[in-house]
């Protein structure tokens, strides 16, 4: 059954048009149609957070959103974090704090971190751990991830130094 719908959306600030079938998830659309492979497929059932993206600024699992749902809406993926000036402060903080090992969970964690810090500039460690509970890291790097988020908050909102 071919039943393609034309979708117009804004992805990482750019207007994008693409054809997709109703059963294709936003994750499949990003990776397989649009070639934005920064967003990862882990569990494909909403447990691991590897596919986290922002939909109109809200954190969602792109495996649990249909591509057809993003008509007229704005999506931010990990590819949308860095700009011509270089890495996003969150990415820079993760780099300096060794906030990743294999890197598979990292795009989702960067996006989840952006969603957290957009909402709460100065989260406690408990806030960070609770917020990231939907992002699994199988290299067991959580302590460094938490410190990277704290460092990112400092980089974004305060002129402070964090020992990482």
């Amino acid at each position, binding site marked *: *059954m071919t*039943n393609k*719908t034309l979708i117009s959306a804004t992805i990482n600030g750019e207007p994008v048009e693409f054809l997709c*079938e*109703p*059963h294709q*998830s936003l994750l499949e659309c990003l990776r397989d149609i649009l070639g934005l492979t920064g967003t990862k497929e882990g569990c*494909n*059932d*909403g*447990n691991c*957070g590897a596919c*986290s993206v922002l939909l109109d600024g*809200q*954190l*969602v*699992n792109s*495996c*649990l*959103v*249909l591509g*057809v*749902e993003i008509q007229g809406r704005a999506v931010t993926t990990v590819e949308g974090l860095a700009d011509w000036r270089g890495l996003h402060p969150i990415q820079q903080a993760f780099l300096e704090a060794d906030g990743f090992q294999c890197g598979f969970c990292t795009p989702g964690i960067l996006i*989840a971190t952006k*969603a*957290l810090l957009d909402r709460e500039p100065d989260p406690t460690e408990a806030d960070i*751990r*609770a*917020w*990231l*509970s*939907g*992002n699994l890291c199988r290299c067991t790097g959580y302590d460094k991830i938490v410190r990277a988020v704290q460092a990112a908050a400092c980089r974004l909102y305060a002129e402070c130094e964090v020992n990482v």
Partner: protein
Amino acid sequence: MRPFTYQAPTSVGEAVALLTEAKQGARPFAGGTDLLVQMRRGLFAPEMLVDVKRIPELNRIAFDPTEGLTIGAAVSCAWLCDHPAVRQHYPGLIDAASIIGGAAIQRRATLGGNLCNAAPSGDAISAMIVLDATATLAGPTGTRTVPVSEFCTAPGKTVLKPGEMLVSLHFPVPAPHTGARYLRFIPRGEMDIAVAGSGAWLALSDDGGTILGARIALAAVAPTPLWVKAASEMLTGTTPTEEVFTAAAAIAQEAARPISDVRGTVAQRRHLVGVLTRRALQGALQRAKGETCDD
């Protein structure tokens, strides 16, 4: 996932017509956090998904101090948890809405979906039962109202008839000296399904010395969320003490019909029902007295 067609109507009437006309089955689609997962597992393969998020009645939170609270079936848990009036007047509901999934799931998952999914472990269902919530349904023959306590009929089964959909959930105005609390046990901090859960609601006399009304509802210890009516009868007219709460918890333990599965054993679940019910009653008591309840 088997291919399907997608419709996003903007009125309840249109949605009901689509749900009624689909010969191979159609499903209302809100957050998709249960639905899409179950469709990928092949549990069902509808010919159509009817996205209900563009229907105004399903996409609103309305609180009125004389009418109570109405929550559209497509309202996300995150939206609910950020709503000042809900936080102020229905903290027992926030207890459940705030623990369904992590941050990303919260932004899609809905109380309406939690109810329609009818999992025995649905955290929000027990919380809604003790708050005396009612569900408004729309179908091909009109609308009707069903108490949330009667909505689930078996695991994954509800009173919804073919072509019928959940429109909204209604909660009565919280009377003075009432309070509710929902608690569950999971082996990790977040992002898990209840091994057992317990919701409690208490109404106290003006002096706080007598329980005028009580409701307890359990999660994950029966084929459906379980309202323990015997505990209401036992508690009403008593003084709210630790001894009375322990006795009510024992009644809840007796009412529970748990199974052993990957999440827990019969014995563990029965034990948890006792602990959680006692603590939920303590929390409900604190809130009924206008105090902040312990974490």
